[in-house]
C-alpha cells in the first residue's frame, strides 16, 4: 500500500523520487487534478484519406458553401474550398449535392447511466447520480458507464460524433463528466476522447434541495440559500487546498497537502483546469451563481437547461458563459415554467454562446431539429436565423462548451474530420444522417451499417433488424 502511494505521488510530482528536501532543484509539480486516473484508450476506426466532393457545406463557423470539396488526411481536415486539386489515387466520396456539416455535439447526455429498459435497480440505486452526499465531487461518471446503452448507437445514427456524459443534478457537486465518441466499445475508455478537457457537473435550484429534503436523514441543503452557502463553503476550502498545492509547487512548503479527491476537483475548477457545466433553470439562480463564480474567480463554462437564460443575455455575454438549452421542453416543474422555444434564438441574437442539448436519448437523436424548433419560434417573432448560423448551435458552440472549439465543431483545416452527410437539410425532420465520419473514419453509413451497430443488449431480441 505504501509503495502504491509512493508510486502515485512520484507520478504526480513528475519525479522519480520524493526529493522535496532539495530546494535547489525543485521537481516539476503536477497538481493532482491534472492527472487523469482513467486514461483514454481510444483509437480511431480504420480509415483512409478521402476527398469529399459536391457537398453543400455548413462549416459550423457561420459560412455556407453551396458546392464545396473537403480533403481529409490522417483524420484531419486539410483543405476546404469550392474546388480542390484531386490527389492521385485518393478515395472520392461524392456527396451528390447533399448537405455536409460538422459532426453534431451533444453536451448533455446521461448515456450509459440512464440505460433503458430501466428496472428496479435504477429506481433503488441509479448510476445517474451518487446520492451519498450533496458533494460528490470525487466521482467520475465514466466509472459507471454501461457501454451497451442503445443510446450511443442511436445518437451516432443521428449524426452525433461527440457527446458529454454528465452526472445527474441531485447532488450540488455532481462530479466529473466524460467526453466520448459514440462508437462500439467494451469499456468507456475506448470511447473517451483523448486530450479532451475535464468537465464537471454542478446543480442549483429545485433538484439538489428536493433530493436532500426527501432523504430520510437530511444531509444537505434544503433551500436555495442553503445551496449557495454550501457552494461557497466548499470553494473556500478548495481555495485553501489549491493554495497549499501552489506553495508546494513553488518550493515554499516541504510536503504536498494530503490527497483529497473532492477538494482536488474543486481546486481544479478554481485553477481553470476543469470546466463547470452548471444545471440551473431560473434567471435569478444563474445570476447568483455568476456572482459566486466572480467571488471565487472562476468561470462557469455553461448553464444547462437555462430555461430563463433569455431573460439575462447581458449577464451571460459578459461572463462568457454559454447556455445549453432545449428546443421545446418547458413547464414540467416550477423552475421550468418560463421556458420558451425561442430561447436559443433570442440568446444567439444577443451575442450569447448558445447550444442545444438533449438530456434524453430520444431528443439526442435529433439535436438539429431542436435547433430548428427554436428557429421556427424565432421566425414567428420576426427573426430569421439562416442555416449557416443555426448549425453553430449544435457544432461549434457545443465544442466551445467542452473547451474543444479549436479541435472539433468546425470544418476547417487542422480540425478533426468529424462530419456528417445528410439526406436533406439537417433542420428538416425528413433528414437522416447518411454518412457519419469521426476522426476521418466512417463510423456509420446508412447504406451499409457497420458491424456492432447494435448494442450487445439488442442481440437475440426482437426489434428492428440491425447488424
Amino acid at each position: 500500500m505504501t509503495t502504491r502511494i509512493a508510486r502515485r505521488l512520484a507520478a504526480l510530482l513528475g519525479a522519480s523520487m520524493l526529493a522535496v528536501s532539495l530546494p535547489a532543484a525543485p521537481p516539476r509539480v503536477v497538481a493532482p487534478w491534472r492527472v487523469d486516473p482513467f486514461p483514454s484508450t481510444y483509437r480511431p476506426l480504420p480509415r483512409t484519406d478521402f476527398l469529399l466532393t459536391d457537398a453543400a457545406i455548413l462549416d459550423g463557423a457561420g459560412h455556407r458553401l453551396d458546392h464545396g470539396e473537403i480533403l481529409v488526411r490522417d483524420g484531419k481536415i486539410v483543405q476546404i474550398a469550392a474546388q480542390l486539386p484531386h490527389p492521385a489515387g485518393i478515395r472520392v466520396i461524392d456527396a451528390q449535392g447533399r448537405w455536409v456539416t460538422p459532426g453534431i455535439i451533444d453536451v448533455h447526455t446521461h448515456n450509459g447511466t440512464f440505460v433503458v429498459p430501466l428496472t428496479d435497480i435504477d429506481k433503488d440505486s441509479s448510476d445517474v447520480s451518487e446520492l451519498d452526499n450533496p458533494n460528490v465531487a470525487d466521482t467520475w461518471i465514466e466509472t459507471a458507464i454501461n457501454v451497451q446503452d442503445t443510446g450511443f448507437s442511436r445518437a451516432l445514427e443521428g449524426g452525433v460524433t461527440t457527446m458529454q456524459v454528465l452526472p445527474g443534478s441531485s447532488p450540488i457537486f455532481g462530479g466529473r463528466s466524460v467526453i466520448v465518441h459514440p462508437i462500439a466499445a467494451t469499456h468507456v475508455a475506448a470511447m473517451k476522447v483523448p486530450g479532451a478537457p475535464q468537465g464537471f457537473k454542478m446543480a442549483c435550484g429545485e433538484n439538489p434541495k428536493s433530493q436532500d429534503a426527501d432523504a430520510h436523514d437530511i444531509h444537505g441543503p434544503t433551500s436555495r440559500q442553503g445551496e449557495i452557502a454550501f457552494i461557497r463553503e466548499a470553494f473556500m476550502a478548495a481555495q485553501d487546498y489549491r493554495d497549499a498545492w501552489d506553495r508546494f509547487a513553488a518550493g515554499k512548503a516541504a510536503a504536498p497537502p494530503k490527497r483529497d479527491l473532492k477538494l482536488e476537483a474543486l481546486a481544479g475548477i478554481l485553477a481553470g483546469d476543469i470546466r463547470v457545466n452548471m444545471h440551473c433553470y431560473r434567471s435569478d439562480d444563474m445570476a447568483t451563481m455568476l456572482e459566486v463564480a466572480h467571488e471565487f474567480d472562476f468561470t462557469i463554462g455553461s448553464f444547462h437547461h437555462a430555461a430563463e437564460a433569455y431573460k439575462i443575455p447581458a449577464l451571460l455575454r459578459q461572463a462568457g458563459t454559454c447556455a445549453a438549452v432545449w428546443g421545446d421542453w418547458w413547464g414540467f416543474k416550477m423552475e421550468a415554467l418560463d421556458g420558451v422555444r425561442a430561447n436559443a434564438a433570442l440568446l444567439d441574437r444577443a451575442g450569447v454562446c448558445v447550444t442545444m442539448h438533449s438530456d434524453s436519448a430520444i431528443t439526442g437523436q435529433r439535436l438539429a431539429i431542436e435547433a430548428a424548433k427554436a428557429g421556427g419560434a424565432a421566425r414567428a417573432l420576426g427573426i430569421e436565423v439562416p442555416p449557416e448560423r443555426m448549425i453553430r448551435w449544435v457544432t461549434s458552440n457545443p465544442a466551445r462548451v467542452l473547451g474543444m472549439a479549436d479541435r472539433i465543431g468546425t470544418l476547417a483545416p487542422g480540425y478533426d474530420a468529424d462530419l456528417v452527410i445528410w439526406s436533406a437539410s439537417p433542420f428538416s425532420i425528413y433528414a437522416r444522417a447518411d454518412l457519419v465520419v469521426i476522426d476521418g473514419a466512417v463510423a456509420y453509413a446508412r447504406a451499409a451499417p457497420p458491424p456492432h451497430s447494435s448494442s450487445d443488449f439488442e442481440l437475440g431480441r426482437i426489434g428492428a433488424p440491425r447488424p
Partner: protein
Amino acid sequence: MRLALVASLALAPLCSAASAEPIAILHARAWTMTAAAPIEDATILVDAGRIVSVVPAAAAPPGARVIDAGGRTVTPGLVDSATQLGLIEVSSAAATRDQSSEAHGIGAGFDIRSALNPNSALVALARADGVTGALSYPQSSEEAPFAGEAALLKLRAGDDIVDHGGAAVVVMIGGNKWPKDAGSRAAQWQMLRRALGKAADGGHAAGGHDHDHGRGDDGPPPGSDEAALGAVRAGRIPLAIFTDRESDIREAIRLAGDFAVPVVIMGGGEAWRAADALAAAHIPVVLDPQANMPSSFDALGNRLDAAAILQRAGVTIAFGMAGGPIEESYNSGLDLREGAGLAVANGLPYAEALRAITVNPHRLWGGGAGTLAAGEAADLVIWDGDPLEPSTNAAMVLIDGAPVPTDNRQRALEQRYLPLADPR
C-alpha cells in the same frame, strides 16, 4: 339585422364560437383529406362554422371576409390521440394534476370531464400549434386495470373545451403496471375479462359520441363503472388499452373477439409484430412515433418504421403521446407534428401521416370527420410551411369557422424579453 350582429360581435369577447360572416380563404394548398393529394390554389369557403366548399381558383363570394393564404398549406385541425391536456398543469405540483383517481369504487367510469381546465397554459399553446382536437386520457384509478374514461377535447377558445366525454374506457396493462392491485399481467387481463363479463350490454358511459347521458331506464346508474363497461359491451365506445408487448397485443385481439368489443391499442410498441392480425381484427393503433428505444422490457421492439409497417398491413394508425411525459401534453402540437414527420422519414406515405393526425383520430374517438368536406366543422389551420416540419408555425387557426387566438404564455414571455435580444 346584419348591422346588429356586427355590433354585438364587436362587443363580444375577441373570438366567439362561430363567425357570423362567411370566410373565403383564397390561394390555399388545401389538404381536404378527401383526396389523395392537396388541391392547389384552392378557395375554401366557410360559413356558419362549417365548410361550404373547397374548389380550385374560385372567387370569393360577395360579403365574405377574405383571407389570402398566399399558396400556403391548409389542413384540417390536428388531433392528438393521447394527451393529458387540461388534466395536468405542472407535473411536479400535485395540486395541478387531475389525471388519476384514488377514490375507491371509481374505475372504468372515472370521468375526467369535470377536471378539465380550459384556461390551462398548455391548452393555449396546443391551440396555437394547430391542435384543434385532443384525446385527454386518465392515468390510473383504484380499480385495476382501469384508468377511467377519456374525453375528446375540442380546443375552442372560451370556457368549454369538451367535445364529448366517454370517448373511450382506458385500460393499462403490462409489466408492473399495477404492482399493488394486480401484479402479474395475467391477473390484469383476468380482472379486465371479469369486469367485462359482469357488465351487461347497453350501459352508458359518461358521454358517448352522441352526448347521451343515460337512458333513465333500469340500466346501471349513469357515471358508474358498470355503465361505462356496458357502453363498451354495446360497442358504443372502445376500450383503449395502453399496452406494448406482443403477447399483450395478441391477448387484446383475443379479448376483442371474445367479447365482440371495439378495442384501440395505445402505445403498442410491438404492435407491428402483430400487424396482420390487428388489421384482420380491425383494431387501430395509436403510436408514439418517436419511440425507437427499448424503453421497457414490454417495448423491446420499439422502432421508427412501426407506423409504416402497420399502415402497409392495413391497420388504422393515429399518433399520440409523442415525446413521452415531458412532451405529450406540454408540446402536444409541436411534437405530434415532429413525430408524424419522423414517421414519413421512416417510410410512412405523407398523406397517411396527415391522416393519422386528422381523419383517423376522429374514426377512433368520434367528433366529426377531420376533413375539409362540405358540411364538416370548419376546424382548420393555415401553416407557414410544411406542417410536418417542426420549424413550421401555425399562421392561423380556425375552430368552428372562426379564427381563434393563438397568443399564449410563451409568446408573451418572448415578446416581453425580445428587446433584450437586440444585437449589440
